[in-house]
């Protein structure tokens, strides 16, 4: 069975009956490893469409979970269940629950360090006080605003006002959490939450690929939220020094906030400062100081290092990028997509109103960034197959546009690999308006192609 990967979570959705016989057919170690190889934060099994399960059936999944945890530290567990199923799992495993349970996949997203929609108001409740606190801490680390209900009565009262919260996290249990460093994006700054003792393990826990991709797509300010760091050793010191040196090539700024040097030698601070790392007491000292933000480079997400011209190899492969886009749009809309015009220029968008965009980076034998700019209504049409309902929910449309551009990225990867060109793709990024897109690409030149389907026009832009 294949997992669907979204927001850093690989999700398996078996249907029907789970017992010892069926579970091993639903999920194999190969399925799990293929998903883990996609660098996911969590691997979950949805019980939404499972009408029956027993302990033998779940045991098979849990054995696979423990193997994957040993290897890549991802959070593992189940999601999408009702109270009856939640209680059944607790009864089966009692105090041996070493995996996590999330009431819904949307609740699980809140705990994923790759989830890009932060600042959600989340009502948290668990009968277990330590679970309540653990959930609140994790949510806070991921950039959300947890509101804890201390008693069942308080939870009932608060949850009756559903409109007051973006999400309600009850019937949720945090087992062994993933060891990855929580990452969140605030404006044009990326904030990493680090804690406890920092040693050689930091290089395993830190998602360097994500960091490099962020540099590639234009982020320049990286803040390490270090309030909960107890101490660091020389291995961690070397890691951060190297990170600062490599970031310097991009003119990136790396800051530490709240770092306490009571148990770490002060000379480490000097070494880090020499490497270009800045220290602040509070995160708000940075985020609420516009002038400082500008100086640190977060007022613009422009990528100065990689402001490069379109090269010959990219132009040679251009038809494959266009083919991948055209094929995807045709697949999604069942209509013919037509190339109207193509020019090498800085991106030109005549009318900026009501337009949204999505981009995906690729790197490897070739590197660059593909951007699709749609009028909002046209984006909705292009995503109809994925959305499946009539909606004006901009967050949903943007989310779906990211899925669409991800499919385009997948097709590009396949088409290029047919030519023995190996590339990997980054996570897609979306822009709710043209200005936020222009902030990233600025005046970079690229190939702009006007495409249309059913007479609906949209822009394809390929740049480096």
């Amino acid at each position, binding site marked *: *069975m*294949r997992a*669907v*990967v*979204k927001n850093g979570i690989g*999700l398996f*959705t*078996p*249907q*029907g*009956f*789970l017992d010892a*016989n*069926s579970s*091993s*057919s*639903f999920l194999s170690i190969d399925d799990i490893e293929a998903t883990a190889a996609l660098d996911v934060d969590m691997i979950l099994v949805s019980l*939404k*469409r*499972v*009408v*029956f399960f*027993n302990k033998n059936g779940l045991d098979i999944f849990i054995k696979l979970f423990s193997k994957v945890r040993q290897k890549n530290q991802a959070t593992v567990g189940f999601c999408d269940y009702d109270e009856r199923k939640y209680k059944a799992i607790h009864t089966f495993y009692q105090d041996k629950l070493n995996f996590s349970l999330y009431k819904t996949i949307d609740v699980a997203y809140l705990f994923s360090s790759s989830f890009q929609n932060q600042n959600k108001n989340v009502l948290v409740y668990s009968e277990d006080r330590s679970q309540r606190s653990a959930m609140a801490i994790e949510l806070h680390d991921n950039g959300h605003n947890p509101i804890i209900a201390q008693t069942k009565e308080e939870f009932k009262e608060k949850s009756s006002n559903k409109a007051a919260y973006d999400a309600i996290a009850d019937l949720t249990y945090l087992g062994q959490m993933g060891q990855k460093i929580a990452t969140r994006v605030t404006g044009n700054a990326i904030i990493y939450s680090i804690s406890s003792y920092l040693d050689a393990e930091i290089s395993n826990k830190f998602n360097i690929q994500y960091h490099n991709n962020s540099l590639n797509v234009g982020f320049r300010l990286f803040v390490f939220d270090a309030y909960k760091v107890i101490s660091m050793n020389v291995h961690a010191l070397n890691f951060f020094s190297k990170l600062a040196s490599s970031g310097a090539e991009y003119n990136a700024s790396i800051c530490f906030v709240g770092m306490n040097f009571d148990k770490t030698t002060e000379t480490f601070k000097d070494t880090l400062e020499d490497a270009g790392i800045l220290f602040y007491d509070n995160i708000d000292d940075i985020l609420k100081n516009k002038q400082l933000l500008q100086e640190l480079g977060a007022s613009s997400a422009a990528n100065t290092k990689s402001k490069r011209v379109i090269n010959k190899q990219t132009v040679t492969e251009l038809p494959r990028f266009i083919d991948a886009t055209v*094929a995807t749009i*045709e*697949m999604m809309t*069942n209509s013919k997509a037509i190339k109207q015009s193509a020019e090498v220029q800085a991106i030109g968008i005549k009318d900026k109103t009501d337009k949204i965009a999505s981009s995906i980076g690729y790197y490897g034998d070739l590197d660059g960034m593909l951007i699709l700019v749609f009028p909002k209504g046209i984006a909705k049409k292009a995503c*109809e*197959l*994925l959305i*499946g309902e009539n909606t004006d929910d901009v967050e949903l449309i943007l989310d779906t546009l990211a*899925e669409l551009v*991800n*499919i385009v990225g*997948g*097709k590009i990867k*396949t088409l290029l690999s047919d030519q023995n060109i190996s590339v990997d793709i980054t996570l897609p990024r979306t822009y709710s308006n043209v200005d936020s897109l222009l902030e990233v690409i600025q005046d970079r030149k690229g190939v702009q192609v006007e495409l249309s389907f059913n007479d609906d026009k949209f822009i394809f832009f390929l740049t480096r």
Partner: protein
Amino acid sequence: MITKDKIDEYIEKIPPAPKALRETLSLLNDGELIKASKIAQSDLALAKYLKNLVNKPIYGFSNEITDISQIFGILGVSSSQQTIYNYMTTLLSPSKWVLFGLNTKSFHELQARLSKKWEMILKHLNIEDKNITSSITLLPASIIVAEALFCEKIEDVELLRSTKQLDYNTILTRLCGLGIFDICEQIATKWEMPKEIGEIIQASSGLKPSPNEIINTLAKWMHLLLFYELSQPIFIEAGLNDFVDFQIDFVDDIYDDFARFMEIE
């Protein structure tokens, strides 16, 4: 990816029920088992299919049965009709399965399991109706339809399904406004199957409940039976478990009865 024209073309290409089958069904309908068996005997492919099917372990016969009149005699009118319809469904199946990891043997196995258990369910529900007995035979046609329409689009479908959890029925409905079960209903019409067969199959999708309460109840049992079978390792490994969405809420009110009947712990 798949257009309404392609679906129309597919339905257009489905041949009408062969004459020998129509005659066999007509005689069975009149209760003429001996005459029906003689006609069936003349169609060698049908005769071979009948022998293979009823000699599967799930039918529980201790000795091999090779004579068609004996087969019809043992099965009776309802089950004989059901078996003929099962054979008709196999006429649609591909010589080589590409999308799903099935072959002739495993597809026949699915037909046999569904048919036999459906008979037992009807007995449990105190329903004796040969058309309702036969309605289960069209359910595997939904798998054949998905195979036929999507087999040339495997890469596209895989890419799509790696991004979003979409079943084949949803993809088809969103692209063409026509789902797999709508196509099955059209096949039933083309083969001049009794009307309730098409109605039960349509409702068994769990997406278009019938206003007829009896048909709806039967559809729930059929939906749950389908996913009971699609949870068997052989069919999970064939990639059938999620070819259509399991509508868990649709079967909620009959689940306990089903679980008792199937002796699920």
